[in-house]
């Protein structure tokens, strides 16, 4: 079978979802697409069941916080892998801070369960349809999402330390 290249993969996806691939690039050879958040679930399910593409493996889910980017403060990044065709694929969905929620993938990939719980725990991304949307690594009573950029690692109000020379106070 002929090896699929990124362009062919992209054409197939764009053919099926003409209005939903908002942006695409290939950093370091890995096809990366931004898709509309509402269609993320549908596209991934389509990719998994597609006869030729057969994207059968969910590698990873990561959330990212871009506080400066108005209207698209949160990104949920899915890394997918097709073993039949040996290509990786990255799908991104951007979410506004007013409504940080996206459809859960647990019905397609049961392994998404804890990955999504981790994203919820650290970024507060709600996964709709998730069977057990709770914190996972942090304590249940925690009332903030620690990986968001507004929580700096060190306490900025500390006055006993002067570490300008280490490049730390000039963020």
């Amino acid at each position: 079978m002929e090896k699929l290249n990124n362009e062919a993969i992209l054409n197939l996806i764009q053919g099926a979802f003409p209005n939903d691939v908002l942006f695409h690039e290939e950093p370091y050879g890995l096809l990366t697409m931004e898709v509309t958040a509402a269609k993320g679930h549908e596209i991934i399910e389509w990719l998994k069941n597609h006869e030729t593409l057969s994207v059968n493996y969910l590698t990873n889910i990561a959330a990212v916080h871009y506080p400066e980017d108005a209207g698209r403060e949160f990104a949920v990044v899915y890394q997918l892998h097709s073993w039949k065709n040996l290509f990786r694929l990255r799908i991104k969905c951007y979410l506004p801070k007013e409504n940080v929620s996206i459809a859960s993938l647990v019905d397609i990939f049961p392994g998404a369960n804890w990955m999504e719980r981790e994203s919820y725990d650290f970024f507060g991304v709600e996964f709709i349809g998730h069977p057990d949307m709770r914190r996972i690594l942090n304590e249940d009573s925690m009332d903030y999402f620690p990986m968001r950029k507004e929580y700096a690692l060190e306490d900025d109000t500390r006055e006993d330390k002067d570490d300008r020379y280490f490049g730390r106070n000039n963020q």
Partner: protein
Amino acid sequence: MMSELKTKEAFAQSSETIDGNIATINFGPTHPSTHGIFQNVLKVDGEKIISSEQTVGYIHRAFEKLSERRPYNQITPITDRLNYCSSPINNMGWEMTVEKLIGAEIPKRVQYMRVIIMELARIADHLICNSVIGVDAGALTSFFYPFTEREKIYELYEEICGARLTTNIGRIGGFERDFTPAFHTKLQSFLKTFPKAFEEFDSMLARNRIFMDRTKGAGPISAERALAYSFSGPNLRATGVDYDVRAMHPYSSYEDFDFIIPVGVNGDTYDRFMVRQEEIRQSVRIIEQAYKNLPEGSYKADLPDFYLPEKADVYNNMEALIYHFKIVMGETEIPPGEVYHSVEGGNGELGFYLISDGGRTPYRLQFRRPCFIYYQAYPEMISGMSISDAVLTLSSMNVIAGELDA
């Protein structure tokens, strides 16, 4: 053997109850047989597990958050503490991720040196896991035998980087020094004595009647379920799926070596054990090939902006001192970009998803930790098993607390 499989299966499927009372017990968080801090709340009917629920996060250390405040070369020691049974693989996976981001070209010699060390780490990792399965099945001797060999591997680490468990081995761009003469002597003697010592260990368990009875059929998972749960590494291969990052997406010149990817059939504890045993043999083969064909050349890439200069130069040469200062302070130019790199860790696909915005620290770094992903299948795997099988399943999955909680 079939009879034993049937007994375990029949036990799982029988609806007969011991006394009809469902008891709730805590398996962990601190219990000698959990080898780390894992809590499982089990609902049991006599010996039989009806359902279970894990609690994770006991040693969560916020590595991803920490990484957002640290320059790139200071993140290597963080990766040590993921799967601490095979830290060199984590270190080198991270170094390769950064090298991919900056587009560095790595000399062949460095790649082969890395392969040797990563395979040594894989042997050490699998030895611990498999000897611990022995302990949980009641054979303490099999725990002590391989420790002599593991010690030799740790001595080899020491020759390279001075550390043993949390190695912080290598640098972005290569190694701080070439293999020392002592390393060569020790590696040659290791390659000579290890296979025999390993077969001795293997003969204690692999065809041991008691061990087989205990492990066959304990904690099985099918290939379909394992894939759905995004399993990787030996646990996936034990179900019969031959996915290995070293072969599918070769990094660090793995395509140069001839090795077999062993697979199991039933995905149970015995298959996981056997897959790891065979992987150790294959790792020895890879080390032999890499060592025999170790190319001449430099032990470091030409990356003055990232690679710390030689100590002798730092003391005598102004330029080197400046570079040393800049690198230690994290004042190097990092290109903005987004990169995913994965290596075959001791437990499976260990991935690094790195987003750089051009600053001195990563904008976002996420570790794809194989343990974290496959441990969620544990309740499904032990459902219907007895408590003693749950213990064996946990140790044969090689769940490492450091990698689970990050």
